[in-house]
């Protein structure tokens, strides 16, 4: 282990300790809420990254998994009184099943076509749910507040428990990412992404590994959806199935750095910070300034730093190592 790796490990540990202690030190509700938003966004970015980053299949319809997670747990809680913890697992399972169902035909498509197919599927599901009376259609579902406490995942007095749930989900997603990346599946992912034709000629069953990626990604995204539903206690198609949400999920990973473990976390931090600050400076209603800044950043990142922020940091790291005449690190390992 060289010095830089050591520094990175210590830094990581420090960040984790600060994160764990954050709600104890900072008690302002707005700041805690801000931190929760970052953690939730980061978790979604990490989940998207498993499919979009590691397996290289760009999804522009991830809101469909998020929505399935939110709707499954909410319907089960509102109509059957089932605990959202179980609802979260049920939502994840249904989202995974749905992911396999759409992945199987769609993985034959390449590049733009796959992205557009996911966009279309998400839009269709949004229309269907909006017109589905059993799940209250366009009106949305209000969640019962009676079951307050950890068992019912409803916290009315302080938002702090949501912070820890979000942090837990993020750590779980990072762990799943890490395990997939380091296992033999991770090597297949890279093969699929870098050179699908060569991978196929070596006898790798591309479809199977892409299905692993989409199932894992969908499960984690759906868990995030359940958390959102429990935090807001209200969901409707516009808040958990919207096309703009799919874009935001993808953007978090892209901004931070696609295909890196912590890139999406950095992306979430930057994106949510920008969102909140533009909202506070310019106000949120109808000015469009947040969209201008948001869109401008996307264009600039796409044009000048396709590797996202993590890509930039990775370049600096390689430059630093090169100066120290240390071993060459391959690109893609980022921060």
């Amino acid at each position, binding site marked *: 282990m060289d010095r830089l790796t050591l520094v990175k490990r210590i830094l990581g540990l420090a960040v984790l300790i600060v994160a764990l202690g954050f709600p104890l030190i900072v008690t302002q509700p707005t700041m805690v809420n801000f931190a929760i938003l970052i953690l939730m966004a980061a978790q979604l970015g990490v989940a998207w990254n498993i499919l*979009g980053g590691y397996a290289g299949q*760009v999804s*522009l319809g991830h809101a469909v998994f998020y929505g399935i997670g939110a709707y499954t747990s909410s319907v089960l809680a509102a109509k059957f009184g089932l605990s959202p913890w179980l609802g979260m697992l049920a939502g994840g399972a249904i989202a995974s099943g749905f992911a396999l169902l759409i992945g199987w*035909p*769609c993985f*034959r*498509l390449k*590049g*733009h*076509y796959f*992205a*557009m*197919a996911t*966009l*279309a*599927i998400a*839009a*269709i599901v949004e*229309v*269907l749910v*909006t*017109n589905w009376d059993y799940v209250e259609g366009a009106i949305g579902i209000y969640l019962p507040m009676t079951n307050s406490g950890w068992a019912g995942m409803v916290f009315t007095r302080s938002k702090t428990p949501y912070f820890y749930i979000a942090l837990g989900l993020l750590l779980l997603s990072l762990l799943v990412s890490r395990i997939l990346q380091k296992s033999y599946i991770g090597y297949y992912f890279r093969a699929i992404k870098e050179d699908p034709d060569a991978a196929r000629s070596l006898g790798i069953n591309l479809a199977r590994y892409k299905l692993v990626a989409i199932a894992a990604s969908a499960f984690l995204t759906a868990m995030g959806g359940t958390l959102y539903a429990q935090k807001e206690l209200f969901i409707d198609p516009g808040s958990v199935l919207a096309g703009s949400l799919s*874009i935001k999920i*993808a*953007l978090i990973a*892209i901004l931070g750095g*696609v295909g890196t473990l912590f890139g999406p976390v950095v992306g979430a931090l930057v994106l949510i910070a920008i969102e909140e600050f533009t909202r506070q400076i310019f106000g949120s209603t*109808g*000015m*469009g*300034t*947040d*969209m*201008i*800044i*948001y*869109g*401008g*950043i*996307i*264009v*600039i*990142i*796409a*044009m000048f730093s*396709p590797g996202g922020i993590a890509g930039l940091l990775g370049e600096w790291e390689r430059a630093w190592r090169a100066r120290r005449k240390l071993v060459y690190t391959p690109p893609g390992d980022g921060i």
Partner: protein
Amino acid sequence: MTHLTMTMLAQTIVSGLMIGLIYALIAVGLTLIFGVMDIVNFAHGEFLMLGMYASFWGASLFFLDPLFTLPLTALMLFAVGVLVYRLVIRRILAAPMLSQIFATFGMMILLRGLAQFLWKPDHRTVPHALVEGKITLFGLQLGTPQLTASLGAVLVTGGLWWFLNRTRLGTALEATSIDREAATLMGINSERMFALAWGIGAACAGIAGALLSTYFPIFPEVGADFILVAFVVVVLGGFGSVAGAFWAGIIVGEVEVLGGFFVGPAYKNALVLSLFLLVLLFRPRGLMGKA
């Protein structure tokens, strides 16, 4: 089936044709850009939106009807398209697909934001349009603005087809679309062709916007209503095929209105998108696309 429902059905089919021709015009620009350089322009609906606003301001500030300002709108959008190419697209030609998707995607959000910032999010309508009201043809009631718009769309789409197939410059554009390297070897400046494709693509969307402006509300996010449909048309027609986009536009228009008629208006988008998925899965090269 009673006489009344037959009339309603005929009315529906005709209105599907009229909106389908507009879809075709929006999609030809998109398919042209994709055909020439393999880039999907997510900001295409925003070119349409800009065309609508150009018509609106021409009408409300200078009392000029959108039909009179149409050539100017087309020129303006041509310039916007070329500018977008020069400033953004040129730099991402060799970038990974993800960057390309997000560059035009970011532009989409940026342009919507700018429109909202400059012109407010209100729904607006063109005051005192030249063509108004309805006419009755063969017992069918047709909106005059819709009829004018679809005729205009046919003329422009036809004109573009003629340009691509019958003029020297257009053939050069087609050649670049078929084989960029071979075209370059023949002395065709592909940079110039790319800029031309963006200019023409944006101008087509702008003209569609101008034609729509007399009977469709104008607001910053109006492009969202059309972009997905335009994608469907492009895929169904076959990426890069102008003739394919023309026929696919009509088919999509019909699926939309007939789906609304038989299944219910709430589901018409879902039906169009299902058609899209079916084409993607079973015939990804579309009706008339390159294999």
